[in-house]
């Protein structure tokens, strides 16, 4: 108890309170790196998150891959196995799961009070959002790369250049998905609400991204439900990230409908920019909800 009252204070006296001369200006990039670092540290200190984020998609991949092996045929040639087809989709699912669970922590931070301490700091709001998003993205990317390494051993083979491009694509898609998570989590006051969004928005978004089944082609024989599905999937930005990844792992066969590779990159980048902008915007507004 006495430590408080009697400890030596020479250090503090030397720098005598924050006089204008010694005032330290905030450095946004220091804030970004620290917020990012905190995300990563927290993630790896919670082992169950590590297991959950990669375990479930891998399990899905193996189980669905085995189960659908016989019934799944893409196009007329039917040469793509489901395990190979489903591989880029699983990669995106891992990114999605990790990114989303990383941003759920915003709700916890708000509820537990940590967030208000961050919000009143002098560093600009974009640096707070970027730190969070970057942290979530790097976690997601690390999980994606672990899966990639596993898959290379088991099934898929790809060139080094393709693997590097895939890493870049995963990073950009990770930014988009983590920012989306921030947008959803920012105004939410319970993690239950987040789970509801997960089931009705995020999982359907993933299912309709070509991850699980190909985008139906608009042929003469297409019925109305195929036309509807085609357009819904076309409007889903995740479709382009999945297709972009599929090109890189060589899983696109000639007769499968798929957006052009360049378009995949453009849409994925625009998705990331728009989502990050939205996250910045929503986090920049001060409301009564910021206080707890």
């Amino acid at each position, binding site marked *: *108890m006495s*430590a*408080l*009252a009697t*400890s*030596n*204070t020479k*250090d*503090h*006296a030397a*720098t*005598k*309170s*924050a006089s204008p001369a*010694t*005032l*330290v*200006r*905030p*450095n946004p990039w*220091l*804030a970004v*790196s*620290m*917020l990012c670092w*905190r995300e990563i*540290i*927290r993630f790896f*200190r*919670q082992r169950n998150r590590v297991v959950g984020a990669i375990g479930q998609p891998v399990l899905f991949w193996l189980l669905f891959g085995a189960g659908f092996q016989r019934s799944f045929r893409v196009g007329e040639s039917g040469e793509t196995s489901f395990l190979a087809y489903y591989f880029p989709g699983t990669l995106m699912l891992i990114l999605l799961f990790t990114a989303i669970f990383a941003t759920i922590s915003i709700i916890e931070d708000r509820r*537990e*009070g*940590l967030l*208000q*301490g*961050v*919000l*009143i*700091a*002098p*560093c600009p709001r974009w640096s707070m959002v970027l730190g969070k998003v970057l942290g979530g993205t790097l976690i997601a990317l690390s999980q994606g790369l672990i899966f990639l390494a596993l898959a290379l051993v088991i099934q898929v083979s790809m060139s080094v250049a393709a693997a590097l491009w895939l890493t870049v694509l995963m990073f950009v898609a990770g930014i988009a998905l983590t920012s989306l998570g921030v947008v959803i989590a920012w105004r939410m006051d319970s993690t239950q609400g987040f789970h509801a969004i997960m089931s009705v928005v995020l999982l359907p978004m993933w299912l309709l991204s070509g991850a699980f089944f190909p985008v139906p082609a608009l042929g003469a024989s297409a019925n109305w439900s195929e036309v509807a599905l085609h357009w819904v999937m076309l409007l889903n930005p995740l479709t382009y990230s999945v297709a972009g990844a599929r090109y890189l792992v060589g899983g696109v066969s000639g007769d499968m409908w798929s957006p052009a590779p360049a378009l995949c990159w453009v849409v994925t980048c625009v998705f990331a920019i728009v989502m990050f902008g939205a996250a910045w915007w929503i986090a920049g507004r*001060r409301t*009564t909800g*910021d*206080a*707890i």
Partner: protein
Amino acid sequence: MSAAVQLSNLTYRYGQRTALDQLSLEIQTGEMFVFLGPNGGGKTTLFRLLSTLLNLQEGEASLLGYDLRRDITEIRLRLGVVFQAPSLDKKLTVSENIRFQAALYGLGGATLKQREAEMLAQLGLADRARELVETLSGGLKRRVELAKGMIHHPQLLLLDEPSTGLDPGARVDLWQYLSRMRREFGVTVVLTTHLLEEADKADRIAILNRGKLVALDTPDALRATVGGDSITIETEDPVRLSGELQAQLGLAANVVDGRLRLEQASGHEWIARIVEAFPGRIASITLGKPTLEDVFIEKTGHRFWQAEETAP
């Protein structure tokens, strides 16, 4: 000396409910200032406004000479805040929490190292630096909060109900630390509390009730406004006795919690007269020096804790 905090006609509403009503006051640099009031009295809203968490609605406010509307970054740079709800990351160690906070204020490298060591030493946390926050006791957690709030050497420290959840020993620690920061470094300390005995330690007290400032002065001066002594009477029918006291002796007594309370100079003489005037009617009568609770009753017409129950 200039004012550390200047408020004029500050009003804040949540929809229809007015949480702060035309609040005007000044807090001097280096002062230990307490906002006292029941929960729902408006002090939490005020705290959120001062800590820059909420936008101003009506009225003007300046902190350390900077306008709370325009110069928000300048204020944030110089303001230390300790929230009532813990703002610590439980999954990080004490040292990591401090460094996390420091980064948000632009502190890094050698400055950070020196400041961190200084905070850990000042708050007696040096041997705990590597422990995860979730393993610490409430008192130690509050010390880490203080370290976080002071790491950037703020000129103004705001604390919201800092004693909540602390045992008596930790409360003594807290007050010693705050007094020292004020004495040695000229830090202005502003805190909110609903604990009357705690408010007594401040230089000045502002009493907030239902969003309004009902009193503002030093603890002694506030007690002096109540006048002489405080007399408490227990009786069967306090309302009737209150009327009779007024009619027969000209004494104004409040009925508080089924008891009669009045303030009067030379209380001991009045006790004898009251007991003689109403034989057999007085179950007990006690004499005391006025407390801040008496001040509160005097200013608001109701008991301190009662206000909390009826607050909107």
